[in-house]
């Protein structure tokens, strides 16, 4: 008769009873499917991009809900980092305030002069930009992309291409829009290209993101006179961004200049979307509309009637 040994008699709940998990064929299937998706993404399949953005916009309410408990944790983290930097920040602000006091007086003088000169020259007033302020609900900054999702979309008249700013300057531009959300491509993203003017000489160049915190300046003329610390702002070239939006200052080395952005893109909380429509886009639209209308008129009306419709005042 088998002797019952004490050390082999256990009260067991899991050990030895459950057989443990094993690799199943479904795992191989899922790995194969994931590899296929990755390959399609690498080939930049347009269908994938569309489906991905639609799926992301469906998840917007979930992210908005998740932000509610996450917000206090974020606030605690922010207040801790603020407390740590408080001494340095106070000193920096004190010095900046002294500089700004002298600049304020100078700016008021110049503002008066500019207003007088503009009145004399009958300058067309600058376009007043409308905007909407929105909350950042998801941050997609990683190895592949630098973008954030905001909780304002088509419902708030946000459109693709609109520039996005915060109190410190330009942040990026809208690249995808859903009814209640939009994706902002940050200025640091690999695919971001922003026409800029640099320093007091207004040297033209392109600010090119490379997924690092300091985007690089490219296409600067060889004989360009720029220095470290020069201000960098949008030039307005191409009509994607309005001219004069602050970006940051030249940093790094002059052989390979980069820009230290004013806006802290890692800590975006609220951003404003500027309703800036590309003027060139409107112009080409107007031309194509006129062309189409002209063609229609040519077929439907006598030639002199169609010429009469083309008022010179409408041409931009």
């Amino acid at each position, binding site marked *: 008769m088998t002797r019952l*040994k004490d*050390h*082999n*008699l*256990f*009260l*067991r*709940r*899991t050990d*030895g009873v*459950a*057989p*443990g*998990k*094993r*690799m*199943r064929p*479904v*795992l191989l299937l*899922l*790995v194969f499917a*994931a*590899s296929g*998706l*990755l*390959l399609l*993404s690498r080939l930049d399949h347009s269908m*994938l991009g569309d489906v*991905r953005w639609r799926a*992301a916009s469906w*998840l917007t309410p*979930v*992210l908005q809900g*998740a*932000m509610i408990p*996450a917000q206090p*944790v*974020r606030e605690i*983290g*922010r207040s801790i*980092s603020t407390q740590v930097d408080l001494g340095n920040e106070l000193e920096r602000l004190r010095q900046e305030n002294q500089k700004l006091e002298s600049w304020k007086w100078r700016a008021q003088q110049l503002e008066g002069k500019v207003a007088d000169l503009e009145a004399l020259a009958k300058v067309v007033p600058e376009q007043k930009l409308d905007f909407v302020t929105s909350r950042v*609900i*998801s*941050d*997609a*900054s*990683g*190895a*592949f*992309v630098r*973008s*954030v999702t905001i909780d304002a979309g088509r419902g708030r008249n946000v459109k693709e291409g609109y520039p996005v700013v915060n109190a410190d300057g330009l942040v990026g531009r809208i690249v995808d829009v859903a009814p209640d959300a939009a*994706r902002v491509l940050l200025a*640091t993203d690999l695919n971001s290209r922003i026409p800029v003017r640099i320093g007091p000489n207004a040297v033209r160049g392109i600010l090119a993101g490379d*997924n690092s*915190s300091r985007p690089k300046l490219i296409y600067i003329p060889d004989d360009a006179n720029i220095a470290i610390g020069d201000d960098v702002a949008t030039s307005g070239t191409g009509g994607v961004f309005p001219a004069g939006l602050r970006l940051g200052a030249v940093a790094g080395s002059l052989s390979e200049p980069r820009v230290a952005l004013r806006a802290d893109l*890692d*800590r*975006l*909380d609220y951003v404003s979307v500027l309703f800036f429509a590309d003027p060139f886009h409107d112009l080409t639209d107007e031309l194509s509309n006129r062309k189409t209308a002209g063609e229609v008129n040519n077929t439907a009306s006598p030639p002199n009637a169609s010429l009469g419709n083309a008022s010179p005042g409408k041409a931009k």
Partner: protein
Amino acid sequence: MRSLRLLMPIISVAVLTLAAALPWGLAAEDRFVLPLLPVIAIYQWTLDPDAWLPEWAIFIAGLTLDVLTQGPLGYWVLVYLFTYIVALFASRARTETAAGRMALLAAAIVAVTGFSWMLASLYFLQLLDWQPYARSTLITIVAAIVLVPLLGVLRFRSRSARGIRLTRGSG
């Protein structure tokens, strides 16, 4: 209540996956640590033979993160499935002490981070900077010290009471 217990592994992975996409104010270079938190959960639940965390749930978690982070579809899916495979192998190792189990988890995190770096490099067809990955590995190992006991509490609470079975040893 019973279904909640059953779904606890999936819920915990889903919560950590969603948290990885939220704006926490971390520097972009350090954000890589956030998607590694579900790695800890997947590893721990896979080690538990009673926990129900099917492969398709891991697939969906990875795909959700790919969608939310606007990265290439399939990247985090592959990383999370790799974690699952690593955990399956780790479950065969006999470790009696808590320190041994933590060492095994740390080794798994190193393996998974190494795999994710390799996969990202392969995607871009160039060797990426390994330092953010190395930094994230260290932070994740530290985070694991906090997260593993929390998962342990969930594991304890989610385990349904079963009939105790007497088993006789063979030798």
